[in-house]
């Protein structure tokens, strides 16, 4: 399983539906897009950030970020 799929799977296991794309020269950045629009502001809450960072760094990403555009 690649890093992005592994991170997505980890997020789904804790109930967060999201797509994760690898970006950067060495695919070092996990760019997350949460699927549930109701997350809205909640996606920037501390708990959501903590879980997202934990899943993506465990999958091997150096940086974990929310897609802006």
């Amino acid at each position, binding site marked *: 399983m690649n890093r992005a799929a592994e991170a997505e799977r980890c997020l789904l296991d804790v109930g967060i539906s999201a797509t994760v794309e690898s*970006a950067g020269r060495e695919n070092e950045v996990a760019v997350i897009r949460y699927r549930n629009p109701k997350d809205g502001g909640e996606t920037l809450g501390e708990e959501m950030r903590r879980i997202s960072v934990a899943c993506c760094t465990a999958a091997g990403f150096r940086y*974990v970020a929310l897609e*802006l555009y």
Partner: protein
Amino acid sequence: MSAVASRDTEFKERALRDLLQGCESVVIGFSGGVDSSYLANVALDELGQDRVLAVTGRSPSYPEVQHEMALRVARTIDLPHLEIDTHELDDTDYTANAPNRCYFCKAELYRRLLEVMRERGFKVVLDGSNADDLDDHRPGLAAARELGVRSPLQEVGLTKTEIRALSKRAGLPTWEIPASPCLASRIAYGIAVTPKRLRIIEEAESRLRDLHPWRELRVRYHGDLARLELSPEDVESLADIRLKERVIHALKQAGFGHACLDLQGYRRGALNSAFRREAAEAQPGRAP
């Protein structure tokens, strides 16, 4: 952050004053940041205007916002001040942007400061490195040592927090400004440093600063992707959809094709921390 100087800090400042007296006359690498502004102010106290010259090296990697602060500090304390051009972008060792990039930049700056020192009859070149810098990945310190540049704040053990406290007491406008390292530090290692990329980063940060009073702000460059690092308190401010849209507009206007918001927020030396971790993992004999 404590902005009150402790007794231990007082001893360190006394040691700094003694050290500067021993230097007789000094050229100071002066960026207009917290450290070099404080050092220049104490040097001026101890040695007087005829024996202190603050020199600012200008290049596309030096942020304009920092340049404005350097001019402000020089005016505020009546500091003899000279600006010179530096040419690190002509050095392919620098533009290759390996983890030792800072070495080549600092070597270029220090060589030019040494020229100024010799031409104008000064005795010593100083820089504003502090005691905390010993804990970070700082290849520039090696350049300083090789070329005989001294770091008095580091020599007497003054930390950033202590320098801020002493700066506040001295009335320096720099006491609470955020750290503002060179723009090349925003570019991920391995991606070449070019004037165009530095301009894009500077424009993005400048546009973003106009939108909101961020506590910390860095636009990290990963090719066409901007990774925005904000202080953890500021990250949540982007839950405000209007602010988020304005941030997106600013980054597009600056020239980024894609952008993302780092969920861990600003971390000092974030690019270096990844480098240090990987270097540690590569150490022979380290347990798997």
